[in-house]
């Protein structure tokens, strides 16, 4: 490895290895701008002009402001005078111009670099009063940056060949834009392996590494790098030898993926005859093709938030119906499980006027939101029921925490059914209704919930978050987010046992369900339907076909005796490594982790 090669590490979020050139997208508080390099004199001249025009505009704005203030509050003009001086200061004015001309940076990036330098300088000032003047510098900086960004598109998702996007964070909406663009992978500073963005990257098969500290500062735009979404490594300035090594690994991984994918569509039954259903989690109608490609037995979780987040307006019943019908009809006769709106929390509707919540995860979201915003909920239920006429649909409600919520939701379904009958619109009278078990209260109540529903689906991502009180997006505690935690396993057992008494089937649709490491234990606990990111299906099916239910049950009982998650993790890892060495090597990564 040459001495210029550097390695950054993060969390592997979407498997695969790609080589590409970095495109850095940065944000400045609530402002966001693209970083790019300038290649010609012409570009540099244009950028110098753009910067100077922004300074002139800022100066005009500040002068106008000062004159207005001077008329009414002459004693307060000094602050604006100060800002006018900062605007033309060498460090914030001459230096960006130099960076544009000599270092080929675009105006935003040049300004940002210059500001960072001033901030660095000020951070070393001991006198707190003088150090506090950085606020004035920041104010001028933000004014200028705002003007610059206003003149260019707000947030450019670049196009082009083999682009690896580097950003502080990417919203799910931005991640969806990547599909079909030239972006071959991405790196973010924020996020965890089960964050929404990571899940989307997996379904689009875009390798990704998240949680890379200081990625924006460390990675220069245009730089060639290797992104290893299997190990979570980012290799900067790779030399030939390293490139070769990674190309080999890339090929091995592709071969492994190819191999496990053959006969994926066959049903997955254990050698001793325990039949399971391995389903796909999907988000968009465009993902329907993944269901076939990876051999899913149906859809165990169809998330329905995207249309609500993507459209500028509240989607109409027809728009919803259109999407649902497409998915249902394309997959018929396979089962499609539609989850009603799980909005709120981190993916809140911006246009509704709710105040920001202190604890969105504990706030007005999912079924709570729907039971409050009944018009929206009704509209969605109508669309789902109408789609049920085109194939096999079942519906489930997220974040159930009481029997009452299930009853209210069901009575709304009945009302909607009556409307549809009156209107003569076809739907499935027998459409099954399920409750998601993802709040500890629902686990405790599952015996009482069971008679109310046709099925349960354990949503592990939220259940683990709530049971262990871990925010999976918070890097400080992300490592404590442990699916095999004894408390989590006991909750799963409790649900399966209570449901068994009432004859209600139990599915599982969190990321936990798609990890070959967890699978034998889940099977042993009695989970017979698993839904996961489509990529994971071939691996999971292969494991199911290779271990007997008896063996899985023996493992589950051993694990239930263990008191620490470390012990359980060791045990599960050891088993996978011994029994499925090739899956152990790549499988966890392929499984969407």
């Amino acid at each position, binding site marked *: 490895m040459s001495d210029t090669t550097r390695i950054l590490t993060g969390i592997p979020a979407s498997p695969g290895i790609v080589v590409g050139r970095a495109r850095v997208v940065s944000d400045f508080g609530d402002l966001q701008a693209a970083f790019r390099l300038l290649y010609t004199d012409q570009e540099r001249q244009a950028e110098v002009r753009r910067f100077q025009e922004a300074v002139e505009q800022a100066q005009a704005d500040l002068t106008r402001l000062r004159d207005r203030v001077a008329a009414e509050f002459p004693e307060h003009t000094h602050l604006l005078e100060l800002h006018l001086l900062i605007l033309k*200061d060498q460090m914030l004015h001459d230096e960006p111009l130099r960076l544009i001309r000599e270092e080929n940076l675009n105006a935003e990036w040049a300004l940002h670099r210059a500001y960072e330098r001033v901030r660095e300088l000020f951070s*070393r000032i001991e006198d707190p*009063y003088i150090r506090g003047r950085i606020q004035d510098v920041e104010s001028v900086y933000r004014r200028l940056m705002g003007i610059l960004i206003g003149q260019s598109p707000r947030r450019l998702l670049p196009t082009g060949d083999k682009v690896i996007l580097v950003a502080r964070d990417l919203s799910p909406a931005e991640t969806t834009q990547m599909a079909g663009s030239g972006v071959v992978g991405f790196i973010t500073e924020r996020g965890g392996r089960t964050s929404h963005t990571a899940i989307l990257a997996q379904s689009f098969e875009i390798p990704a590494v998240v949680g890379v500290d200081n990625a924006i500062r460390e990675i220069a735009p245009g730089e060639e790098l290797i992104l290893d979404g299997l190990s979570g490594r980012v290799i900067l300035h790779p030399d030939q030898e390293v490139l070769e090594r990674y190309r080999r690994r890339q090929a091995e991984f592709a071969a492994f993926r190819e191999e496990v994918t053959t006969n994926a569509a066959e049903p997955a039954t254990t050698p001793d005859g325990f039949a399971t259903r391995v389903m796909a989690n999907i988000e968009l109608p465009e993902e329907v093709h993944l269901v076939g490609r990876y051999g899913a037995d149906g859809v165990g979780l169809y998330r329905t938030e995207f249309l609500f987040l993507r459209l500028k307006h509240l989607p109409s019943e027809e728009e919803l119906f259109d999407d649902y019908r497409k998915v249902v009809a394309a997959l018929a006769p396979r089962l499609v499980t539609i989850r009603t709106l799980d909005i709120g929390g981190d993916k809140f509707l911006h246009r509704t006027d709710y105040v920001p919540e202190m604890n969105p995860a504990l706030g007005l979201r999912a079924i709570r939101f729907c039971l409050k915003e009944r018009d929206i909920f009704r509209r969605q239920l109508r669309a789902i029921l109408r789609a049920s006429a085109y194939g096999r649909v079942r519906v489930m409600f997220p974040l159930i925490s009481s029997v009452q919520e299930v009853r209210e939701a069901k009575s709304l379904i009945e009302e909607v059914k009556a409307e549809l009958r009156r209107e003569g619109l076809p739907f499935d009278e027998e459409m099954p209704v399920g409750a998601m078990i993802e709040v500890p209260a629902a686990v405790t109540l599952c015996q009482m919930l069971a008679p109310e529903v046709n099925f349960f689906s354990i949503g592990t991502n939220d259940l683990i978050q709530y049971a262990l009180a871990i925010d999976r997006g918070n890097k400080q505690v992300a490592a404590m987010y442990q699916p095999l935690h004894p408390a989590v396993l006991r909750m799963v057992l409790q649900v399966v046992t209570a449901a068994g008494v009432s004859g209600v089937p139990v599915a599982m649709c969190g990321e936990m369900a798609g990890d070959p490491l967890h699978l034998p234990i889940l099977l042993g606990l009695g989970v017979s339907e698993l839904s996961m990111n489509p990529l994971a299906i071939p691996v999971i099916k292969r494991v199911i076909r290779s271990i007997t239910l008896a063996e899985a049950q023996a493992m589950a009982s051993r694990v239930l005796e263990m008191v620490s998650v470390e012990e359980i993790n060791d045990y599960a890892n050891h088993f996978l490594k011994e029994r499925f060495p090739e899956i152990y090597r790549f499988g966890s990564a392929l499984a969407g982790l």
Partner: protein
Amino acid sequence: MPEKSHLVEREVWVENRLGIHARPATQILNLARQFEAEIVLEKDGCVANARELLSVLALDCPQGTRLVVRAKGADARDAAHAMVQLFARKFGET
């Protein structure tokens, strides 16, 4: 042409309570811009161009700081003198 290389140095002390914060720095800068001479402020080997606001602020001069004013150029003597006066007046503060 002895004027050209004229160099004047004066010692000054920051006596106002808040030190060289934004307003005094602005006064230093406005004063420096009235002269042709190049004026720098030196504190413990660190140098700031008196015409650059952020550079003066970053010098970090609370009350009690000792500075050397160094002026160079045709009107260096007057410039240094004016600067000494400004410091002596405590920038009009207390």
